[in-house]
């Protein structure tokens, strides 16, 4: 049977079975993790556990079914490695604490789709400040390209196209790096040229 780790009202417990979890009186604020998940998730997003929330014992038969399906995976889920396997909860706890970080404009869009505030995806970095610095100080052509990518990052983010926004953000970062590299290369190169000219 699948083992769960639970974080509820600041207390972390686990490994536990579904039956044990049912006795805790959990509500929607709980976070859960089991092997196979990359990180902690809200309990509401785990289908077999969200039934526990209302407090009815109805889903008992149902999770017995799921349990039998999961038997082949059992060896992986040996709770020996308990402490190490559980990802750190720090980032999860921190996430809902600063909901204002999310731009209200973007939030409205997600609100219509019923996404809770803390789960609204954040915009990937635009690197705009670095692009401007690169434009006025280093090699400016890639700097301008960096500003273009900053614009595209925000544009795709606002359209809800997160994958493309992330890609544009990465390109922008590369443009800034390229700008700094070109600036660093041209520095000794132009000095060497000057010395060469003087020697002639």
């Amino acid at each position, binding site marked *: 049977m699948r083992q769960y780790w639970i974080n509820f009202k600041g207390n972390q417990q686990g490994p536990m079975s579904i039956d044990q979890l049912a006795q805790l009186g959990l509500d929607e604020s709980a976070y859960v993790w089991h092997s196979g998940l990359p990180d902690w998730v809200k309990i509401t997003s785990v289908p077999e556990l969200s039934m526990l929330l209302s407090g009815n014992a109805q889903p008992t038969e149902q999770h017995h079914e799921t349990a039998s399906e999961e038997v082949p995976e059992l060896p992986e889920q040996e709770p020996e490695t308990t402490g190490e396997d559980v990802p750190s909860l720090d980032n999860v706890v921190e996430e809902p604490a600063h909901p204002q970080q999310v731009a209200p404009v973007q939030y409205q869009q997600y609100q219509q789709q019923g996404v809770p505030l803390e789960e609204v995806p954040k915009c990937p970095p635009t690197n705009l400040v670095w692009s401007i610095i690169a434009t006025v100080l280093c090699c400016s052509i890639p700097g301008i390209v960096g500003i273009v990518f900053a*614009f595209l990052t925000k*544009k795709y983010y606002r359209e809800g196209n997160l994958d493309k926004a992330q890609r544009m953000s990465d390109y922008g970062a590369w443009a800034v790096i390229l700008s700094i590299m070109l600036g660093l290369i041209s520095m000794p190169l132009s000095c060497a040229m000057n010395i060469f000219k003087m020697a002639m």
Partner: protein
Amino acid sequence: MTTKRIVLTTLVALIVLLAVLVYFVLDPSSPAMSKYFPKCPVYWFTGLKCPGCGSQRAIHELLHGNLAGAMHYNALLMAAIPVLVLYLIADVIKRRYPTLDNVLNHPATIITILTVVVAWTIARNIWGF
């Protein structure tokens, strides 16, 4: 702060301090000194002025408190400094006051910055400032 971060911050601060010192003491615009300062690769190869051309001379003038001189060498740099400060402030206070950060990172704002930079680059190559 981790040790790595402290080392990194100190290193960056030292480099900035060194650069400030060099640009304060040495004048990149004097004929004797100019050959020791790095040339803009864009100007070097194309003969066209890029938006960053003149920044070294402008920084030298700025460090001597000569705002008009700095404006003369690179007005865009002078315009960029308050804008960058504004971006930093917006980033620091964005948890409590997200509005400023949202406005500054709005696609329309970014496209405005881009237009200003491109327009200025074209203008300085036409009229030669």
